[in-house]
C-alpha cells in the first residue's frame, strides 16, 4: 500500500502546514493502490501514522471532570504513551459488550455486512484522502475485526482467517484516528443495501474512547461549557444578552429603529433555541440577526433563553448519556417559562437530535408543562409533524409564513447574489428537510441554482467538519473532507456564477468559509434567514441601503449611507 507509510507513530518534527489546493488534490490519487500484494489491513494497525493536520487535539482533563467523565488526564495524541488506565482493554471489551446488548443497530451492523463496497467511494473523507481506511466499510471493519475476535466463536477459533484480530494498543490508536475522521454524516447509509449506518458505529466507537478519557478537546470543551453556561461557547448569561444587543445595534443602523426581544421571559408563547454558533461567530451572526428581524416583523410572542442557549448538542458526539443531559435543558426551560412550543433555529446535528432522539430521551420532562401541539400564531397552521416533540424547524415555520403571504418580501434586494443551497447532512438524512429551505430561498432570492444531483438532497456531502471536527488543528482533514462539496460549488460557480452558498447549519457556517476560501474563494457562505431578513420589509423601516453585512444593496452603491 503506497498510501500507508511503513514506519510511523511519531510525527515528523517539521511543523505542519496546509498545502495549496492543487497539491492537495494531486496527493489524492485513487489509482495508486493497484497491486493487491500489500499486507492485508488486519495487520496494518502498527503502521498507522497519526498525521498532524488530520486530527484534533486531546481533551483537557478539566472538561471531563466538569461533566464527570472517566479517566481525565493530560495526554497528547502525538505521544507514544497515551497514559491509559491499566485495565483499558477490559474497559473497552466490557463497554463493547454492553453496547452490543443495548443497540440493535450496533449488533446487527457488526454481523451483516457483506463488504460489497457500495459505500466505499461515498465518504467525503475517502474521496478527499484516498486513505483506504476511510472507506466506510473499512472504518466499520476496524471494529468488526475486534468484535469477531472477542464475541464470535469463529473469530475466537480461526483468528485472522475469520477476519478477527486482537485488540492492542495499535488497534486502539487506529480506531481513535479513524473514529475522529468520520463526521457521522450518514451518506454511506443511503447507499448500503442493508442500511448499515457508519454513524452508528462511530457513535459507539466514540463512546468507547470516552470510557478511556480519549475525547478531543473540540468536543469535550463545548460539552463542558454547555453543561454549565448553557451553550457551547461558554457565554455567560449577561454576555449572551450583550451579544444579542450588539446585533440590535447593527439592526438599528440598517432599519432605522431598535427592536426589543426578551430573555428568559415567563409566559411567552414560544421559546426560541438556536445554536450558540449563530450568536458567536460570523457568518452565523447575520443569520441570528435574520431571526431577530423576522420575529420583529411578525410581532411574535417569543423569548430567548440564556439557560437553554444552545441548540447544538456535542453530547451526540460523546455519549448517549451526555447527549440526554444536555438536551434535557430544552424541555426543562420550556416548562419553567410556560411556553406552548419550541422553535428551533438553523442547525444540523441539533436537528438530528431533535428529530430522532429528543422525544425518546426527554419527553417525560414536558409532563405537567403548558406545552401543546405547535400552532403558528400568525397563520394558524398546525405543525402536525411535530405533534409529540413540540419543536418546529425555523424553515418549516418560515415556509408556512411565505406560503400564506404573511411576509412582505423584496427579493430584488438579494439580486447581487447567485445562490446555491447546501443540504446539511443531518436535516437531509436524519429528517428529510429538503423542500422547506429551498422554498424559502426561492421566495427571497431571484437567482437560485442547484448543485449536481449526486451532491445534494439525500446524497449531500458533508462540509468536512461535522461531528465536532471543525477545529483549526485538523485543517488538512477538513479541506480533504470538504473537497467533494467544494468541487460541486466550484462547478455551479463556473457554470452560473454562483457566489453565495446557503445552508441551514451552524457548523457549516463555521466550516465552509475556510473551505470556500481555499477552493473557491469567490463564494461566500450564508444562513437561509440572513437571506430572508435581507428581503424582508419591516413595518416602519427606513429605506435600506445596506444588507445585514453592511454592504450596499443592489442599486444603492452610491447611497450616502454607504
Amino acid at each position, binding site marked *: 500500500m503506497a498510501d500507508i507509510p511503513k514506519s510511523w507513530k511519531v510525527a515528523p518534527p517539521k511543523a505542519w502546514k496546509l498545502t495549496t489546493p492543487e497539491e492537495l488534490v494531486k496527493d489524492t490519487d485513487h489509482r495508486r493502490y493497484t497491486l493487491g500484494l500489500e499486507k492485508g489491513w488486519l495487520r496494518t494497525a502498527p503502521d498507522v501514522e497519526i498525521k498532524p493536520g488530520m486530527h484534533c487535539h486531546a481533551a483537557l482533563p478539566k472538561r471531563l471532570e466538569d461533566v464527570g467523565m472517566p479517566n481525565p488526564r493530560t495526554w497528547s495524541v502525538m505521544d507514544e504513551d497515551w497514559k491509559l488506565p491499566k485495565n483499558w482493554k477490559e474497559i473497552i471489551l466490557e463497554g463493547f459488550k454492553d453496547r452490543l446488548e443495548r443497540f440493535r443497530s450496533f449488533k446487527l451492523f457488526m454481523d451483516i455486512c457483506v463488504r460489497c463496497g457500495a459505500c466505499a467511494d461515498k465518504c467525503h473523507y475517502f474521496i478527499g484522502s484516498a486513505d483506504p481506511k476511510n472507506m466506510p466499510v473499512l472504518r466499520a471493519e476496524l471494529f468488526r475485526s475486534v468484535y469477531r475476535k472477542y464475541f464470535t466463536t469463529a473469530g475466537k477459533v480461526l483468528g485472522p482467517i475469520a477476519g478477527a484480530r486482537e485488540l492492542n494498543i495499535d488497534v486502539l490508536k487506529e480506531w481513535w484516528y479513524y473514529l475522529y475522521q468520520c463526521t457521522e454524516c450518514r451518506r454511506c447509509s443511503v447507499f448500503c*443495501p442493508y442500511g448499515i449506518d457508519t454513524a452508528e458505529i462511530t457513535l459507539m466507537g466514540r463512546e468507547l474512547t470516552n470510557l478511556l478519557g480519549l475525547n478531543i478537546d473540540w468536543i469535550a470543551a463545548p460539552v463542558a461549557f454547555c453543561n454549565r453556561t448553557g451553550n457551547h461557547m461558554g457565554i455567560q448569561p449577561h454576555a449572551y444578552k450583550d451579544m444579542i444587543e450588539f446585533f440590535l445595534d447593527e439592526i438599528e443602523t440598517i432599519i432605522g429603529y431598535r427592536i426589543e426581544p426578551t430573555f428568559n421571559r415567563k409566559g411567552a408563547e414560544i421559546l426560541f433555541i438556536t445554536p450558540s454558533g449563530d450568536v458567536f461567530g460570523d457568518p452565523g451572526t447575520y443569520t441570528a440577526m435574520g431571526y431577530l428581524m423576522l420575529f420583529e416583523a411578525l410581532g411574535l410572542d417569543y423569548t430567548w433563553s440564556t439557560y437553554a442557549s444552545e441548540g447544538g448538542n456535542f453530547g451526540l458526539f460523546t455519549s448517549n448519556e451526555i447527549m440526554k443531559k444536555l438536551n434535557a435543558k430544552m424541555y426543562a426551560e420550556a416548562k419553567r417559562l410556560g411556553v406552548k412550543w419550541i422553535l428551533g433555529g438553523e442547525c444540523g446535528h441539533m436537528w438530528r437530535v431533535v428529530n430522532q432522539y429528543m422525544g425518546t430521551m426527554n419527553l417525560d420532562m414536558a409532563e405537567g408543562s403548558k406545552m401543546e401541539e405547535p400552532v403558528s400564531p400568525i397563520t394558524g397552521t398546525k405543525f402536525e409533524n411535530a405533534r409529540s416533540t413540540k419543536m418546529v424547524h425555523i424553515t418549516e415555520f418560515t415556509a408556512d409564513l411565505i406560503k400564506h403571504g404573511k411576509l412582505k418580501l423584496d427579493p430584488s434586494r438579494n439580486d447581487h447574489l447567485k445562490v446555491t443551497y447546501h443540504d446539511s447532512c443531518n436535516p437531509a438524512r436524519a429528517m428529510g428537510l429538503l423542500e422547506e429551505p429551498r422554498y424559502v430561498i426561492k421566495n427571497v432570492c431571484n437567482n437560485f441554482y442547484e448543485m449536481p444531483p449526486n451532491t445534494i438532497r439525500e446524497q449531500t456531502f458533508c462540509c468536512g467538519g461535522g461531528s465536532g471536527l471543525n477545529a483549526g488543528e485538523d485543517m488538512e482533514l477538513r479541506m480533504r473532507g470538504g473537497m467533494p462539496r467544494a468541487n460541486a460549488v466550484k462547478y455551479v460557480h463556473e457554470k452560473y456564477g454562483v457566489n453565495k452558498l446557503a445552508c441551514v447549519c451552524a457548523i457549516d457556517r463555521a466550516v465552509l468559509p475556510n473551505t470556500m476560501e481555499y477552493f473557491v474563494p469567490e463564494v461566500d457562505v450564508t444562513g437561509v434567514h440572513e437571506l430572508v431578513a435581507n428581503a424582508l420589509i419591516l413595518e416602519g423601516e427606513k429605506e435600506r441601503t445596506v444588507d445585514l453585512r453592511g454592504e450596499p444593496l443592489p442599486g444603492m452603491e452610491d447611497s450616502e449611507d454607504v
Partner: protein
Amino acid sequence: MNAILSLILSGGVVSMLVAIPLLGVWALPHVFGIHLEWLFGIVIPYLAVIIFFVGIVYKVVQWGKCPVPFRIPSTCAQQKSLPWIKYGYAQKLDNPVSTAGVVGRMILEVLCFRSLFRNTRVEFGSGEAITYKSAKWLWLGAMAFHYCFLVVILRHLRFVTEPMPFFVPIIEKVDGFFQFFLPTVYQSGLLLGAALTFLLLRRLLDPKLRYISLVADYFPLFLILAIVKTGILMRYVFKADVVSIKELTMGLVSFHPTIPEGISVIFYIHIFLVSILFAYFPFSKLMHMAGVFLSPTRNLSNNSRIVRHINPWNPPLKYHTYEEYEDDFREKMIEAGLPVEKQAASPAAKE
C-alpha cells in the same frame, strides 16, 4: 491476510470440501470396502439442515432481543411536513412516516435492492474535477445472482415434493425457454454461474474491493460456484440418475431415509457442498438475508416527532438544572437585567 492469501485459502478449503465426499464415497469403497453413502447422503444433510434452522432462529432471536433505543431511519427523501409540500409515493417509500410506507420501503429494498440501485461511482477528471457516474453493474450482478439462485432453489423443489407444487413446472418451462440443447438447458444455472463470476472478478479487479475483501468473502463465492458447477455437471455431463436421486431426497423429507443404488459420486459432492453452505450460513455474512429485515435505518418510520418512540433502557440522569445555573450566575443576571427566580441575598445576609 492479503487478497492472494485469502484466495488461496478459500479456494483451498473449497477444493478440500470437494475432495472429502470424493474420498468418502468413491475411494474408500474401492480401497477399503467401506461404504459411507449414508453419511454423505443422510447424516450430514440432516445435520446441516438442523444447524441452518436452529442457527438462523438463534441469531434472529439474539438480534430481536436487542432493543432499538432510537428511531434512526436514513431519510432518503422529503419528510412529511406542511400539507402543501409534496409528499407523494416516492417520498412515502424513501422517507416513510407510516407502517405502510415502511412495508413498501422494505419490499423495494428486499425484492429490488433499492439502495444498491442508487449506486454511483466517483471519477476524477482532469485536475480537481470530481464527477459521479451512475454505476448499476453491482445492482445488476446482485439481482442476477439472487434471482437465479431463487429460481434454482425453486426448481429443486421437484426433488423434495410429491406431487410437486404447480409453479415448479411453470418455472422450469420459463427457465428452459431457449431449447437449444438436450436435456433442456436452464438459463438460471448458467446465469447464476456468470453472476458469481462477475461478483468474484469485481472483488479481484477493483482495488478498493480487493483491499476490503476477506476470506469470508471469497469462500462463499467459491462454495456456491462449486455447487453450481457440480449441479451443471450432474445434469448435462454425467447425466445423473434422477429417479434414484429423487428416491433419496424424498426419503430425507419423509424421514424414511434410504440410499438407493446407482447414485453417482458427483451427487454426493453436490449435496455435501450444499450441506456445508447450509451449516455455514447462520455463522456468516450470508445472514444479511435475515438481517436486512431488522435494519433500524430501513424498517423504522420517520415519525419520531409525531409519536414518541420508547427506549426501554432510557436512563434517568441528573442534568444541570436551571436552579443550579441561576445560583451560579445570579448576580450577573440581575446586573444585566435578566429575570431571576430568587433575588440575590442582601449584603448583610452574605456576611
